[in-house]
């Protein structure tokens, strides 16, 4: 799915928190959004996910505005994912259940994805009792099990150990290569952006400060603000 943004503006009270002239998200690519706290990254991604309305200029999906059908192809995982008060298995099965898959198909898909995320041993555990990293993996498995076309991730690997980070990154990149899923990923981890992303969007004060190929923006930023931000990170 291609997503186009033109003159998007989001205002809270009298504060404009996102203000983007133009941005196009191409099918099958991985986009990284980097920027300081409060830059409007989450807000932008939540607008793309259809969770929030822009004050002006909502995004256009494959040439059309978001409807009940296209929203089913987009999924979003928040900074603090919410898991349902039931087992890990039932959590991951949920998107399939509401899509009316039969029991056998659900079981197979859930078992497969639990293996992929190395959470099979947690199958029967109450999801609300998982550790932070476990929750993150289960939430991501739940978001991917129904094979969405667009995956929006808000800091998916904050507070996660290096092994799990690697696992999550590998899964995201495999899904992207094999299934052509489009990914937009907010991260404060510059290394992760370099490893995963095709393009990087650098946001500051609600605006896109710099945009381009990941390597170029990270290794050779044009804007002084981006340079400064990145230099602090690499310290």
């Amino acid at each position, binding site marked *: 799915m291609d997503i186009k943004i033109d003159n998007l503006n989001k205002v809270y009270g009298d504060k404009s928190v996102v203000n983007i002239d133009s941005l196009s998200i191409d099918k099958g690519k991985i986009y990284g959004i980097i920027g300081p706290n409060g830059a409007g990254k989450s807000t932008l991604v939540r607008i793309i*996910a*259809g*969770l929030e309305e822009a004050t002006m200029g909502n995004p256009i999906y494959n040439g059309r505005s978001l409807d*009940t059908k296209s*929203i*089913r192809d*987009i*999924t*979003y*995982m*928040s900074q603090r*994912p*919410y898991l*349902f*008060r*039931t087992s890990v298995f039932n959590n991951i099965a*949920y*998107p399939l259940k*509401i*899509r009316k898959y039969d029991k056998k198909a659900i079981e197979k898909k859930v078992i497969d994805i639990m293996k992929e995320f190395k959470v099979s041993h947690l199958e029967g555990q109450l999801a609300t009792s998982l550790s932070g990293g476990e929750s993150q993996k289960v939430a991501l498995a*739940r*978001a991917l099990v*129904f094979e*969405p076309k667009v995956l929006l991730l808000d800091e998916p690997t904050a507070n996660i150990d290096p092994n799990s980070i690697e696992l999550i990154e590998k899964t995201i990149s495999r899904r992207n290569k094999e299934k052509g899923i489009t990914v937009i990923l907010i991260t404060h981890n510059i290394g992760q952006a370099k490893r995963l992303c095709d393009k990087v969007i650098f946001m500051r004060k609600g605006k896109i400060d710099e945009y381009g190929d990941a390597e170029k923006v990270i290794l050779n930023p044009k804007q002084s603000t981006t340079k400064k931000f990145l230099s602090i990170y690499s310290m």
Partner: protein
Amino acid sequence: MEYIADGFIEAFKLLLSLDQEVYSIILLSIYVSLTSTLISSLVGIPLGFFLGLKKFRYKRIVTRFLYTFMSLPPVVVGLTVAVIISRRGPLGSLGLLFTPAAMIIAQTLLVTPIITGIIFNNSKEQGHVIRQVCKTLGGNRLDTLLLLIKEMRINILIAVVTGFGRGISEVGAVMIVGGNIKGHTRVMTSFIAMNHSMGNYSISIAMGIVLLAISFITNSVLYKYVAGD
């Protein structure tokens, strides 16, 4: 001090006596409060979700009123209902005054705001998150509603049990609209109030113990469910 001990002895005697009147009083109490709690739940749960999750004009004022209604004095509710259903009142022709139906109406008015308020408060935060997650996973409106009920089942249960507790323990409203008529509208609380004012302390303490036992049982069931979850 002796009358307290007497109260306990009397309580056992009361329950063991299998006295028809005592049991019918207990049953009527439970019937009236259960029925009003049921009606209040049917109204209050959806209304609470609606108020908590929807944005609309005058929401502030509506919630301010809701909080006020949560602590309505039972006597005031009783009085209002009595005025409306008394023979010269707007609904006088129905002949409801001093009937169990009148008590159910009064308790429903008391309990509905409590259930609505508790659901409202819980759905404001948790409900909002649940609704968003459901949306991101592809759920439609019906899926969202079912998920909300499932995820917030404990909150719903707490709201219902709290509402029932409010109903079964209040005396002001049932006294006014029911009239504490023997064999007809006498419930536990009005029985206690009457016997106390007549100086029959031990029997009122006895019924008080029964009332406490009922609260204890309903709350135990609740906490067993909450803990077992």
